[in-house]
């Protein structure tokens, strides 16, 4: 069926009318800050406390826009008789953002997590020379670096956390084992003491209840009577103690 003549005209009117009722897409930028996506590449921030002046960033930079100066300082020996150490001290760290092409290779390559992407983007200058920003400015931008975005649900754990968790798990297992051993040793000792006391108090066996509380604490007394299998201290059985005595 051919279209009704004039239906195209009506369709055009409908489109504009519908658009009018929708939300506009205008970004009122200087009045309203834009909502930037996570990992926006605004500017490169320097966390200079982490920087070891390894120069990897400056060497990997495709357009050579990172300037680093440093000198060596000698650190006196930590312990008497030790050796003096030398340490790199950062004198200058500057990025020329008129050259930077925001590839992020420096951030990728930094082994010490000293460089970060910041979403800050309002650093236009009227002179191109002013676009070379020194370390204090780069350090200030560090405050604008957002927290890393949360992982997707069911995502694989980050390597760092996985490693840390593995270490922690190992450590906890170790501690538990130690605690167990210590407890076993203690219980054995207690049982021995109890047995010795029972031996000593045999003449007045008429009141064993009175004798038990002070010597054998409930934990030591219960295993004997109720669950001998659960109680590891098989060595601390009264008869064994008696036999010993």
């Amino acid at each position, binding site marked *: 069926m051919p279209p009704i003549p004039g239906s195209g*005209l009506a369709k*055009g*009117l409908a*489109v*504009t*009318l519908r*658009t*009018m009722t*929708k939300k*506009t*897409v*205008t970004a*009122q930028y200087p009045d309203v800050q834009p909502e930037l996506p996570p990992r926006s590449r605004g500017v490169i921030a320097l966390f200079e406390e982490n920087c070891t002046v390894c120069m990897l960033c400056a060497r990997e930079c495709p357009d050579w826009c990172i300037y680093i100066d440093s000198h060596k300082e000698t650190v006196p020996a930590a312990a008497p008789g030790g050796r003096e150490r030398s340490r790199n001290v950062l004198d200058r760290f500057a990025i020329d953002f008129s050259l930077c092409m925001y590839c992020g290779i420096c951030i990728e390559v930094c082994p010490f997590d000293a460089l970060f992407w910041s979403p800050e983007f309002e650093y236009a200058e009227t002179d191109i020379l002013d676009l070379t920003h020194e370390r204090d400015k780069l350090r200030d931008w560090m405050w604008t670096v957002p927290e890393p975005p949360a992982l997707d649900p069911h995502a694989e754990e980050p390597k760092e956390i996985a490693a840390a968790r593995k270490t922690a798990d190992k450590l906890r297992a170790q501690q538990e084992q130690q605690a167990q051993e210590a407890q076993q040793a203690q219980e054995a000792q207690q049982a021995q003491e109890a047995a010795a006391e029972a031996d000593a108090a045999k003449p007045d066996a008429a009141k064993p209840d009175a004798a038990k509380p002070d010597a054998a604490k409930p934990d030591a007394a219960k295993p004997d009577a109720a669950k001998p299998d659960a109680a590891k201290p098989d060595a601390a059985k009264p008869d064994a103690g008696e036999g010993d005595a």
Partner: protein
Amino acid sequence: MNDALDVALRIVIVFAVFMVLPLVVGQTEHKVMAHMQGRLGPMYAGGFHGWAQLVADGVKFAQKEDIVPAGADRKVFRLAPAVALLPYLLVLVAIPIGPGEGAVGQVVDAGIFFVLAVMGVGVLGSLMAGWASANKFSLLGGLRTAAQLLAYELPMLLAAASVAMAAGTVSLPGILDAFEWWWLPWQIIGALVFFVAGLAELQRPPFDMPVADSEIIFGAYTEYTGLRFALFLLAEYAGIVVLCGLTTVLFLGGWHGPLGADGLGWVWTLLKTGILAFVVIWLRVSYPRLREDQLQKLAWTTLIPLALAQIALTGIVKVAIN
């Protein structure tokens, strides 16, 4: 004395309407067009959603240097904006806004004749500007204006004649007095023809061949700057007000509301005019400009036959009723 005061008051009111309504339409166009294109439009001037944008524009235009090209016909060049603007003021005088003598600037017995004749003069301003500018683009714009005027005056007049036939009078208040609600479907074709032809006469998109800024650099207005250019723009918006007002009066029943006489006649007139002005803006946003030959074709092969058919229909119904 009392008569003089009455006349003065009417002139002041008409003049105030003439100055305010076109600005309101212009501002509405700014905002409506923006939102239809997913934008916000002016937001700064005046503080609240840019309500004073056109005032700011006016200040800007007033500050600009008034340039007359060296080769121009100076007198005609300077006169043209006034010729473009004043007819609309005169038309506004004759448009009744409510029932009775108090709601019209001046009752003109041959209202339709007066209104349409004077509106035609407005286009003359563009012709004068195009001719006097000594600029090829302006001349082309002027020629296109002339062609458009020739093509679209006719259907406009025929459509208006149909209403005059139906009412049995050519006086605008007289037509409104005779109006019945069923005239609306009866004269609907005439209304469409009148409105479309009026749009073309105002050189509003999609009929803006004579100004066509992307082809002939605003046509007849190429050489104009400052206040004179602002006057041309004002004439365009005053033209919208006048066209919508006339369509309201002739075809939509003017001050007649759906509930009969309720003392709110002028509200109904303004409301209908406003809705029509919105449609004018809406059409501008929705449609691309017609080509020159398409423009002529539409007038001669569609609008004029339709207008003639409307006149025939009006005549038949009129005879049948009597």
